């Protein structure tokens, strides 16, 4: 057995463990030299990324393969159906999310080099940063409900401290406090739901739970609590108030990882709905008065309603916002709305016999849009951070004429603008088109609202582009220079991937999105693979 096989075998643990080890080594390394610490952190992230790529290659090689990893022993002890030991279960969806997290982590850590250079306390910054990355990977890869909660808390605490990193600005502390209150509440909701499930079925493993679940009244309560708790973390509209503050006040490199954490929470909701409850959603009828409706229809319509609200409020708030980063944060809220619109539309149709194709299509669009949103919004936040770095200004009223001094940043912003508003050559177009087409099959009004809000999003960013980059040269920005190379490199990596996905969307859909959708819809495969592994 050679070393590569060994690494692939242990990869689910290593992906979480190596950033964790790096996080605790960082304070020691930074005692030696600051530059060495930066190189060390970048090395840790690149090494983790290499392992993620190896694992991805292994997963995609065989269709429907699930890589199961048992912690602390060779096989979990099962006594009377009580599965002890933590399992990591990596299927197409997990590895898809891990690839997104990898891109964001690489770009964020490279960007931090120059962006955070002038700050003090950087050893703590990098420690927390790696902890946050480790928590994000853990949330994505774990197959254990309680483990999921633990990683949720790790990311919450690390990101709270990082949001409030610029403590000399009082509003950052305010944003951090708001974030920790909302995310702690959300995490407790999740814990409560896990307790309900554990009390009934004596199991914490997702696959074991999915095979045992009966869909009793308590399970319905647990489902509602799980979805609302994770929606709080994902920033879906009634619970979105922490998001603009947290995204707007955090350093841009932190915001990038926060986007990834939000997507990981969304992944959690997807996993709970489709894998945990997937087998029972269709067969359960819900009695409302005298009418009985399929439960997946109720859930789907409810989620679609939330999605429309999210898109609308996100776009309208972005239209009136003057602060650059808060505006992008509201646009990010709207983008999350698109994802859950597709997921809700998929829920209404994917389980039915005659219309399953539409549901699969919508799910494909939604999952694909998770990738695209992370890249687009991430790139825009990095550009906003670059503008703040160069001018120390975030209000759009004060900016102007920056295209003359910062030509690369302008190009990157233009790419992000076109991508986020779904214009043809970029990746946003590809996924949004799938969402429009599939939601049109469900109900034409949905796709009309979606297209309208996408146009409004374009209007928002054209306004930003005009007021920040175009126009006459302002005298106070005479000595503004282009940002350092490491920041340009980080933005360049994301922009390249955006253009690549925009040019070859079918390749990406076939190779990495389709396995993820298959993994979502085929929960019996998940159960049999994992329990067979036990």
């Amino acid at each position, binding site marked *: 057995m050679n070393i590569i096989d060994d690494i692939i075998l242990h990869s689910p643990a290593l992906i979480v463990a190596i950033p964790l080890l790096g996080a*605790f080594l960082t*304070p020691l390394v930074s005692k030696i030299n600051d530059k060495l610490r930066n190189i060390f952190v970048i090395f840790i992230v690149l090494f983790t990324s290499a392992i993620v790529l190896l694992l991805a290659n292994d997963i995609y090689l065989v269709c429907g393969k699930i890589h199961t*990893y048992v912690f*602390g*022993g060779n096989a979990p002890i099962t006594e009377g159906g009580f599965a002890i030991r933590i399992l990591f279960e990596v299927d197409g969806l997990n590895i898809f999310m891990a690839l997104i997290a990898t891109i964001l982590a690489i770009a964020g850590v490279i960007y931090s080099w120059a962006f955070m250079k002038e700050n003090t306390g950087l050893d703590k910054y990098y420690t927390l940063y790696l902890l946050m990355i480790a928590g994000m990977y853990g949330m994505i890869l774990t197959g254990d409900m309680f483990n999921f909660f633990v990683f949720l808390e790790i990311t919450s605490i690390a990101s709270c401290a990082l949001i409030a990193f610029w403590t000399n600005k009082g509003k950052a502390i305010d944003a951090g406090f708001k974030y920790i209150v909302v995310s702690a509440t959300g995490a407790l909701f999740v814990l409560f739901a896990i307790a309900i499930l554990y009390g009934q079925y004596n199991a914490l493993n997702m696959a074991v739970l999915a095979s045992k679940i009966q869909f009793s009244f308590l399970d319905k309560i647990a489902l509602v609590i799980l979805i609302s708790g994770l929606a709080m973390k994902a920033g879906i509209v009634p619970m979105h108030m922490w998001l603009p503050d947290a995204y707007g006040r955090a350093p841009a490199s932190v915001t990038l990882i926060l986007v990834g954490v939000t997507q990981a929470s969304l992944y959690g909701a997807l996993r709970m709905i489709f894998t945990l409850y997937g087998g029972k959603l269709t067969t359960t009828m819900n009695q409302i008065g005298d009418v009985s409706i399929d439960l997946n229809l109720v859930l789907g319509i409810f989620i679609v309603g939330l999605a429309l609200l999210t898109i609308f409020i996100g776009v309208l708030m972005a239209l009136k916002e003057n602060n650059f980063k808060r505006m992008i944060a509201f646009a990010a809220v709207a983008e999350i709305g698109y994802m859950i619109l597709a997921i809700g539309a998929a829920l209404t149709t994917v389980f039915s016999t005659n219309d399953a194709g539409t549901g699969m299509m919508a799910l494909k669009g939604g999952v694909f849009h998770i990738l695209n949103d992370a890249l687009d919004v991430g790139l825009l936040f990095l550009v906003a951070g670059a503008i703040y770095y160069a001018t120390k200004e975030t209000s759009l009223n004060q900016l102007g004429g920056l295209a003359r001094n910062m030509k690369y940043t302008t190009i990157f912003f233009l790419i992000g603008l076109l991508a986020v508003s779904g214009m043809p050559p970029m990746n946003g177009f590809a996924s949004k088109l799938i969402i429009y087409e599939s939601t049109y099959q469900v109900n034409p009004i949905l796709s009309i609202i979606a297209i309208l809000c996408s146009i409004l999003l374009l209007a928002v960013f054209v306004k930003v582009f005009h007021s920040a980059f175009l126009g006459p040269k302002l005298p106070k920005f005479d000595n503004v220079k282009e940002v350092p190379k490491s920041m340009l490199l980080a933005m360049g990596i994301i922009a390249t991937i955006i253009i690549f996905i925009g040019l070859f969307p079918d390749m990406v859909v076939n190779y990495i999105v389709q396995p993820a959708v298959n993994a979502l819809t085929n929960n019996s495969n998940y159960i049999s693979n994992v329990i067979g592994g036990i």
Partner: protein
Amino acid sequence: MSGMSRIVKTITNVAFPIVLIYGLYVIAHGHLTPGGGFQGGAVVASGLAMLLVAYGSIWVIGKVKEKQLSILESIGAIGFIGLAFLGILMVFIYSSFQGNFFNNFLINQNEIPLFNEIGAGLANINTAGVIPLMNFAVGLKVIAGLFAIVLVMAYATRIKEGK
């Protein structure tokens, strides 16, 4: 903050070793009795906080620096995760086992005569493989971390008194 009266200092001198030993007992017996690394570490850290209150932060900061504590804290965390990593490397030690992350590699083997007994006396400290070692690592981290927090907070109050 400054120190307290001679009576308080004398009582602290008497109580501190007892608190310390009790905390270390809770850490060492984590796998046998209720408690463990975190709980025992918190007991020891509360003893250190008592020392801080009795003798004052100026005296304590002359003895121990916050940076040294943060190094100690990192070492505790690295020890914990390092033991977990050693579980993977078990395959190189024994060649017959398939290692795993967080594997209890010291138990049920004869190559390394350390913490490997089981059944000989369940109340002995050497019957749980790596678990006591991990408890010590967590205990070190908790002692250093909690004491660093208390120390920094006490030091900050001194700055406010000075104003």
